[in-house]
């Protein structure tokens, strides 16, 4: 585990709570690893989309998946930076069961310098019986800050050479 992943574990709950809308709908941090993020959304009658069935709105699942994909993107970039959702594709396999907590597991399977590609699944207990699946792209909108301990060893050696070249 890199120091960055350890740091993410430490601040994960605060990252979710510090997102006003995530806090508003009651989203919770579950777990994080390199390129991986898991969040949960306990059942909340305020999120009902269809009063006849008491099923939560697709939009609430969309928000949970977006947030999980965003955290997986940060975990995939392996550093702190501002990110924004570029695209989000969601397929709804079935309605979430009223009363059940929805869990979103996101995997950032590729990052380039500026873009992270993520797949995610939302389920209510059994990942093999998903409520929805998602595919997302996130873009890094500013600089990426890596923890000094996680920077590649030769990065320090290269830096002075560049300075020498300039002068």
């Amino acid at each position: 585990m890199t120091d960055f992943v350890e740091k993410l574990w430490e601040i994960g709950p605060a990252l979710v709570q510090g997102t006003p809308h995530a806090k508003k709908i009651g989203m919770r941090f579950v777990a994080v690893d390199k390129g991986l993020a898991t969040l949960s959304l306990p059942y909340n009658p305020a999120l009902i989309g269809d009063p006849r069935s008491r099923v939560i709105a697709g939009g609430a699942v969309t928000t949970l998946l977006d947030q999980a994909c965003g955290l997986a993107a940060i975990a995939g970039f392996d550093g702190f930076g501002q990110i924004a959702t570029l695209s989000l594709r969601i397929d709804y396999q079935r309605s979430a069961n009223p009363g059940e907590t929805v869990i979103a597991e996101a995997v950032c399977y590729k990052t380039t310098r500026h873009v992270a590609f993520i797949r995610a699944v939302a389920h209510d207990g059994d990942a093999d019986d998903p409520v929805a699946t998602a595919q997302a792209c996130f873009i890094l909108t500013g600089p990426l800050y890596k923890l000094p301990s996680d920077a590649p060893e030769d990065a320090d050696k290269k830096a002075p050479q560049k300075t020498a070249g300039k002068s």
Partner: protein
Amino acid sequence: MTQRLADTLVASIPYAQILGIEAKLKDGELILNLPFLKSNIGNPTLPALHGGVIGGFMEVCAMAELRRLSPDLPFSKPIGVNIDYLRRGKPVATFARATIFKKGSRVANVRVRAWQETPETPIAALSGHFLLPETK
């Protein structure tokens, strides 16, 4: 559809209430309004609206447009949606309007545009398939 029906429609969805969504009928078109609420923020540093809020808002807009066709039937259900984020959602009011691109007997394809300043400068777009309620 009357303005009163549009109001009732939005008021009947708890999720639309938590986002603060309002409905306005203008020249026969249904336009949804998402007033700025602090609780809809996703990035407090910028600040910017939560991507999920914008996506959820457009989903509600698509389902409301489909509901207009058959006000007495249950809501349509989303099957799959594609959301493109085009501009940052600023901390101001957002609007959305849906167009039914194609309607079959079971499935409808709907496109939604969300904007803040003008409809010509959209902040996001949604296109999706929705399962229509059975007419029996």
